[in-house]
């Protein structure tokens, strides 16, 4: 039995990328631009786009067996133009929340990821030239 953080990230990313009418997605805290699976090039995305990354906690070993439980959250920052009012960002945030309903299960390596609660969006805020609304999807991954 094994499951790696990379496999967890891949499962979350695959699910997010499958969102209908999703804008460009920048994946990872260290990405300078959007990651295109076709040409594997990084380019600067036009607005709106999503900036997705994980917030992890240290893995726990809940039993005597040699496996871990990983509690974390997928954060997707919805970036839209400033001055577009809140409809656009709210609609895009809701798309993400709908794509990760509570109790959704994903496979990662030999383990599973379960969405533990309905996702939620922070209040949006002006952010440089953008308007940023962070969406939080909480999960528990177990081998």
């Amino acid at each position, binding site marked *: 039995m094994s499951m790696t953080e990379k496999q967890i990230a891949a499962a979350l990313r695959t699910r997010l990328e499958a969102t209908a009418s999703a804008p460009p997605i920048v994946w990872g*805290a260290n990405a300078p631009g959007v990651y295109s699976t076709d040409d594997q090039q990084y380019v600067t995305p036009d607005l709106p786009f999503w*900036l997705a*990354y994980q*917030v*992890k*906690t*240290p893995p*726990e070993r809940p039993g005597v067996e040699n496996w871990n439980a990983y*509690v*974390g*959250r997928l*954060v997707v*920052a919805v*970036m839209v133009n400033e001055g577009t009012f809140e409809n656009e960002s709210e609609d895009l945030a809701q798309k993400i929340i709908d794509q990760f309903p509570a109790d959704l299960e994903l496979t990662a390596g030999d383990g599973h990821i379960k969405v533990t609660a309905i996702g939620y969006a*922070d209040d949006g*805020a002006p*952010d*440089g*030239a*953008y308007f*940023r609304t*962070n969406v*939080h999807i*909480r999960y528990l991954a177990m081998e």
Partner: protein
Amino acid sequence: MKYTFATLDQWTKKTEKRIDAVLKDATQSVIAVAQTSKGHGGRMPVITNTLRDSLESSIAGGASGEGESSHILVAPTMKGGDVATFTWTAEYARRVNNGFTGADSLGRNYSQVGAHFVEGAVDQWPAIVRASIRKAKVAVG
């Protein structure tokens, strides 16, 4: 110890004592986790210590304090049912926690994802409470 109806009051007091002990320890611990710098395995970026030192801790209708260690002074005065508030008041606290892209008032350009030191600590709450329960069992019995 075996409890009977005659010693029910003793059992209640001990349970309350244990609940308070867990509450105090877990609250103090979760803020300590949020305040842990990236250099020490946490999520908070600490360069000048301004953000960490901007912590304000208070209990509704009770103790309050300011500063990096204010939670250590305030949390131990909590009792079951109290509402405690912990706030980072540095101007850029929200930007550091939630992420920021663009120029600040000094013209410096940033493009960073959120540090999420608050959420990172909150997500550890169940594990923190379990650890506090273990400690309370030893301390209170």
